[in-house]
């Protein structure tokens, strides 16, 4: 008998599909994220990347099994998944635009209830990570720049104390320098042990951070590769146009 028990994956998805009404956007997909791992999902427009994240979060209907830290969480509603620590930063940031930065951050810590000391501690951590948010704390979220809004979206997700952070194209619509700054922060969070599942179209940025890459095209996984093995866009293109 093998004495070393294998650690269960942080997230293990098997045969997960997703659909919008009768339209199937994601064919059955298998995927794993290990504890503290940075995994990126790459693929062209319409590949099913967003649907995959939304199916994991139960924001779209789907079939298949999802396990989190060895526990079967298939069928749990979205709010229960968030309480377990599966937090998603949606495409377009999903901020509450009419609320202030501070209110958005407090909503991130919703699951903490009235534990004000812990909320304050996390607020300080987020403000230390993104000092701009401290300056803009009383500002309405919708009035901030795209980069600041993305910082807020990530900051709000961190307020929830995620165990797995899923991000859907955080660089979308941002200047290259700002996008690089956001992704650098994600890298720093990962080095501190946070598991990250990133959907990204800007492959060069994402490949610098990721340990493993899934390539999605036409609603199914075309390849699973170590990120270091991918030298250029050309390595990926053959999967896009399979």
């Amino acid at each position, binding site marked *: 008998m093998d004495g070393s028990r294998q650690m269960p994956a942080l997230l293990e998805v098997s045969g997960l599909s997703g659909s919008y009404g009768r339209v199937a956007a994601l064919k059955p997909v298998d995927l794993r994220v290990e504890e503290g791992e940075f995994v990126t999902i790459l693929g062209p427009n319409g590949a099913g990347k967003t649907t995959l994240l939304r199916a994991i979060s139960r*924001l779209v209907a789907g079939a298949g099994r999802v396990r989190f830290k060895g526990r079967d969480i298939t069928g749990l509603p*979205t*709010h229960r998944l*968030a309480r377990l620590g599966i937090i*998603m930063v*949606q495409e377009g940031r999903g901020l509450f635009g*009419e609320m*202030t930065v501070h209110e958005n951050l407090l*909503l991130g810590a919703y699951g903490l209830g009235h534990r004000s000391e812990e909320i304050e501690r996390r607020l300080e951590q987020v403000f230390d990570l993104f000092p701009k948010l401290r300056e803009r704390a*009383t500002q309405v979220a919708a009035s901030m720049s795209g980069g600041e809004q993305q910082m807020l979206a990530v900051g709000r997700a961190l307020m929830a104390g995620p165990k797995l952070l899923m991000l859907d194209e955080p660089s979308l619509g941002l200047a290259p320098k700002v996008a690089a700054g956001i992704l650098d922060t994600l890298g720093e969070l990962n080095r501190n042990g946070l598991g990250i599942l990133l959907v990204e179209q800007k492959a060069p940025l994402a490949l610098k951070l990721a340990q493993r890459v899934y390539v999605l095209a036409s609603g199914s996984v075309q390849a699973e590769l170590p990120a270091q093995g991918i030298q250029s866009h050309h390595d990926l293109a053959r999967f896009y146009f399979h």
Partner: protein
Amino acid sequence: MTLHASTFTRRGGRSYLAGAGALGIALLFALVFIKGGYLLTVMQLAMIYGVFCVGLNFFMGYTGQASFGQNAFAAIGGYGSAILCVQFGWEPVLALVASMAVAGIASLVVGYPTLRLRGHYLAMATFALGLITYDLSVQWTGLTQGYMGYSGIPPLGIGPFTVEDERMKLVCLTAILLLGLWISGRLRNSRFGRALRAISTSELGAAALGIRISRYKLAAFVIAALYASAAGSLFAHVVGFISPEVFGLQMVVVTFTMLYVGGVGTVLGPAIGAVIASLLPEIVRSTGRFQDTAYAAVLILMLIYAPKGLSALAGDGRKEG
């Protein structure tokens, strides 16, 4: 620099508007209080409608859901107070509280299945709720006395203390409305209120943060029902008479108008809307045959020039850096 200057001017302008608005309302109250007469009754009804609208604002404003059936809960409050006081000799305040409890339970029972619907479907379901309640109040004559309604409902009070003086009634109603506004303001900026407002912006986004959508919608619906019931009871005790027409479709239209004129989703908007929309028919009465046209024209102008409501002009419900 220019941006800061314009922001300062805009904020200054809003503060000025808010101050002018508060002064205007204070002067109006003083005038009505001194002059008495019919306007006193109009203001009393404005305060009662204000209580109703503050509650409706929880569901429609903060949570962003549509309900055309809150008049059903006002009817429960009104008839509850009337029946308990006239038939069973209860103290008015106890009857009001008991009616609120009944309305709260009714809203839980009705809201649980109904709030699974969204958008237009929810609006239609709640509209049906109002129609059913109206029909019950007409047809269930053994309980409601049908079109005859209830008269001789005692004024608000408890034990030897009753509020019979018309001016004191206005003071009492104003105090109740202010209490309702205070609770609304406190809840809006609490964890609970933030969750409601998050649902209003994006249900999926709120759920992704761990907020249990169905529970919060139901809570907002119940709170709105409690306020509506209190307003219905207050109407019964202040006017002394109720009939099915009091809680009919007209109530839905009037309270919607008040909510949107004042500012849906703001704290003070429902109260401001109730006062303005109650006084407006009296102001345009001098136009004689054209008073309905004049009333509608003024409403349209308000909605064009203050689409987020009059209270939003003064910055209520917004925060800026």
